[in-house]
């Protein structure tokens, strides 16, 4: 499979503070990829490095097989809080997009503006959060990029605006078949729209894989307190907690777990993400589990 984005030892420092430290990952093309992790994990920095807005301090990054260049027609970027030019109208944004981008799809832009009900004469500063997000998405998508990067695009939106935004995004994906990488805290949204998930904790990939695989292979085991060393082959412990009498484990296993002494439950994606985030606090960064591609 070709990669949309490859990072190898990627590091970004501001003076002594490091925003991204020795990040290595491989994001497959042709997917809608969710990037999750706690604040400060380096998600925004990674996305800004990927669209060429930042230069790495050390390490290597490749986007669609090349070094990222700011303003590349191949890569669209919707920054956090979906910034627009407050003093310009919706129509001005589209004219500017057409002027700056040789690959501009004017028909697509016009159709989407009508579809989401934006008034072309409206000043962008007067738009609601949801409308602003739709405008930013339209401008990014009308470039007809091969890769669209979105940094927390729906974080500030109310549930209805969020759903409308994601509907629009998925419609564009279905039409144009572009790769998408979006960071978000809202895992329930990601479970709907992403088919691939990456959990980034302190610049490290804790888990990466197909969403359906992740859901099918993670289990919560609850049973009598016991030593967790004897999980058996093909099983990896993600998280554990114990009381005097009981053990609760989150386990990754491709084979079904048939053991009457455990109560085995499914996990939703949010539980899985949380397990990797909290499991990361306890042990070293070398325990990285890579998903099947």
């Amino acid at each position, binding site marked *: 499979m070709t990669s949309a984005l490859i990072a190898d030892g990627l590091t970004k420092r501001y003076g002594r503070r490091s925003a991204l430290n020795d990040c290595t990952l491989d994001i497959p093309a042709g*997917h*809608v990829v969710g990037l999750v992790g706690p604040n400060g994990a380096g998600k925004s920095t990674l996305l800004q490095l990927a669209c060429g807005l930042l230069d790495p301090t050390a390490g290597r990054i490749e986007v669609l097989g090349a070094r990222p260049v700011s303003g590349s027609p191949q890569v669209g970027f919707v920054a956090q809080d979906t910034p627009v030019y407050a003093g310009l109208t919706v129509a001005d944004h589209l004219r500017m997009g057409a002027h700056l981008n040789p690959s501009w799809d004017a028909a697509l832009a016009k159709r989407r503006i009508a579809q989401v009900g934006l008034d072309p004469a409206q000043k962008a500063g007067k738009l609601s959060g949801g409308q602003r997000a739709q405008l930013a998405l339209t401008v990014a998508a009308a470039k007809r990029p091969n890769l669209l990067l979105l940094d927390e695009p729906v974080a500030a939106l109310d549930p209805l605006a969020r*759903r409308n935004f*994601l*509907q*629009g*995004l*998925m*419609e564009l*994906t*279905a*039409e144009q078949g572009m790769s998408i990488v979006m960071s978000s805290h809202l895992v*329930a949204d990601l*479970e*709907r*729209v*992403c*088919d691939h998930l990456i959990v980034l904790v302190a610049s490290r990939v804790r888990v990466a894989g197909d*969403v*359906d695989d992740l*859901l*099918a292979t993670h289990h919560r085991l609850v049973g009598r307190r016991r030593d967790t060393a004897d999980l058996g082959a093909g099983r990896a412990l993600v998280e554990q907690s114990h009381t005097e009498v009981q053990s609760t484990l989150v386990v990754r296993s491709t084979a*079904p*777990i*048939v053991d*009457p002494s455990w*109560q*085995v*439950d*499914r*996990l*939703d994606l949010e539980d899985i993400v949380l397990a990797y985030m909290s499991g990361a606090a306890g042990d070293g960064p070398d325990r990285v589990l890579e998903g099947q591609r």
Partner: protein
Amino acid sequence: MKWGAEVIEFHLDARSGVAPYMQLIRQVRHALRLGVLNEGDKLPTVKEVVARVAINPNTVSKAYRELEYEGLVTARPGLGTFVTRTLVGDSLSKHEPLRQGLARWLTEAREAGLDDESIEALFLSSFRAFSEARG
């Protein structure tokens, strides 16, 4: 956006722990079993589904491929995906003997001293292991 009257609507339960593509498959099978969908009926297009449910297009395609593999639908390029087989009767008529078998099993389980929750847990864990083993 309004769909035509003759297609079904999908919905997603985000907290079910069931993969989204599997939820779509189950909803189609359910509609087939209930006779909501019949042979020749059209499923909504991938684009219609994603625009409506805000779901990944690959997920919808994966569900449709799986249904095609099961022989329940067929994709006609440029036209859409159509139901080729109904599930009505096919399973309903078999319910009664299966129910009786299950009742016998439940009696045995109770005689072995299992309470309701143990029976439920045993059934669920066996069922999951069984379906996971079959993929």
